[in-house]
């Protein structure tokens, strides 16, 4: 069992966490958003092999946060509360 660091609760079992998508994938704003921009936001993913910056939720405390992780070794590089980029 791998431990993931919740920025609020500390290290907890991986099963308590749920993956929430790419960090930095911000919802397009406004009424004239072109189709390809919507499709990009909804569906297209970086899906990197190696270092990934991702949104996760700790389902116990319910907080969303940003975790940097290596998708090959599964090593966690950093974990931090959501920044202003995702506040909207």
């Amino acid at each position, binding site marked *: 069992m791998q431990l993931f660091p919740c920025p609020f609760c500390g290290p907890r079992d991986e099963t308590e966490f749920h993956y929430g998508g790419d960090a930095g994938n911000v919802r397009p704003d406004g009424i004239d958003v072109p189709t390809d921009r919507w499709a990009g936001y*909804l569906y297209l993913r970086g899906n990197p092999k190696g270092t990934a910056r991702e949104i996760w939720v700790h389902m116990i405390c319910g907080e969303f946060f940003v975790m940097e992780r290596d*998708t090959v070794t*599964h090593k966690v590089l950093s974990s931090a509360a959501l920044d202003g980029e995702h506040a909207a």
Partner: protein
Amino acid sequence: MTTRYSALSLFKEGLAGQTGWQPAWRSPEPKPSYDAIVIGGGGHGLATAYYLAKNHNITRVAVLEKGWIGGGNTGRNTTVVRSNYYYPESVELYGLAHRLYEGLSKGLNYNVMLSQRGMVNLCHSTAEMEIGARTVNAMQINGIDAELFSPDDVRRVAPIYNFSPDARFPVFGGIWQGRAGTARHDAVAWGYARAASRLGVDIIQNCEITGFIIEGGRCRGVQTSRGAIRAERIGMAVAGHSSVLAAKAGFRLPINSYALQACVSEPVKPILDTVVLSPGCGVYVSQSDKGEIVIGGGLDRIPSYAQRGNLPTLEAVIAGVLEMFPIFGQLKLMRQWAGIVDVVPDSSPIIGESPLPGLFLNCGWGTGGFKAIPAGGTLLAQLLASGKHNDISRPFDLDRFATGRLIDEAAGSGIAH
């Protein structure tokens, strides 16, 4: 020299001391250019090359494989072949694959050991039975064989299931597909490789793609660990690594890569002669011809490129197996592994031209690529040969993510991702 496999050639080679067998496929040096390049030497890639040569008479073809052929998901799946999908588009696609599988051993002159032992998807409640009836109706209307099973029918095909009164997931019936079954996964890769090689296709292993040659906005070849190789038409069938190659080509795909685990027990005497799937337990089980109990479950829920899998998912799968078949409680696990699967939001594959003209995609099969190999190969070959979709592949184009015409098999047939 023996080139064709038959009972007679086996007999002759027996008399000749097995000295006339040849390597099943050639391993040539890559040429500087081909008519078409297929990236990925798994089932889909090898099948694409074979159908390019067989159906379209294009034989100056190279299959480029980073490792060894069939070493990715083709060698890591649970070997199930079936076509019990919901939407007409999916039935056309998987039905084509299923039909081609039925003639594959003869067509390739290679025994892929297709064993149509049937598969039952269990229903554990009245509500699940209603959905089961809907699925069976949809399959029959779409021209695919399906039957709604009663509890007695399930008991007949899987008597060792946990029918005890206190079972956590009791049987209310099931969805039966009698033509479903298993095939020898390595043989599918080797059979296509051998048949393609005999038609002139170059299979080049240990050849990693490091970049794409892009001229005038078109893909005109690839840079590899064994030098530049040019072609006007390039197909890629690299499953969980599709996003990695897409990044090299300058676009993104609607794909997340996850590990999908499977495991087998020690071999035992024949005890289970069908494929049993329990949605409640999140597990499906069959028995290989060697006697191993072959166990598959759901995805690891952590995006990953590590071909090993995590313990919590394996634990849940094993708990599910023991709920389904308490009789397996003393079996020892022999091997466990994982493949990296390419999961798409609507759980349907992507077949079509990529945003980079000249580069064509066959990906997004997620947890179910093995059963689709003959269709994936046929359809990508047609795209590479003509630049145009077959009617069967058209709905699966990448453009559905912009138009919104998704084919949601997670909702349709209950794929668990």
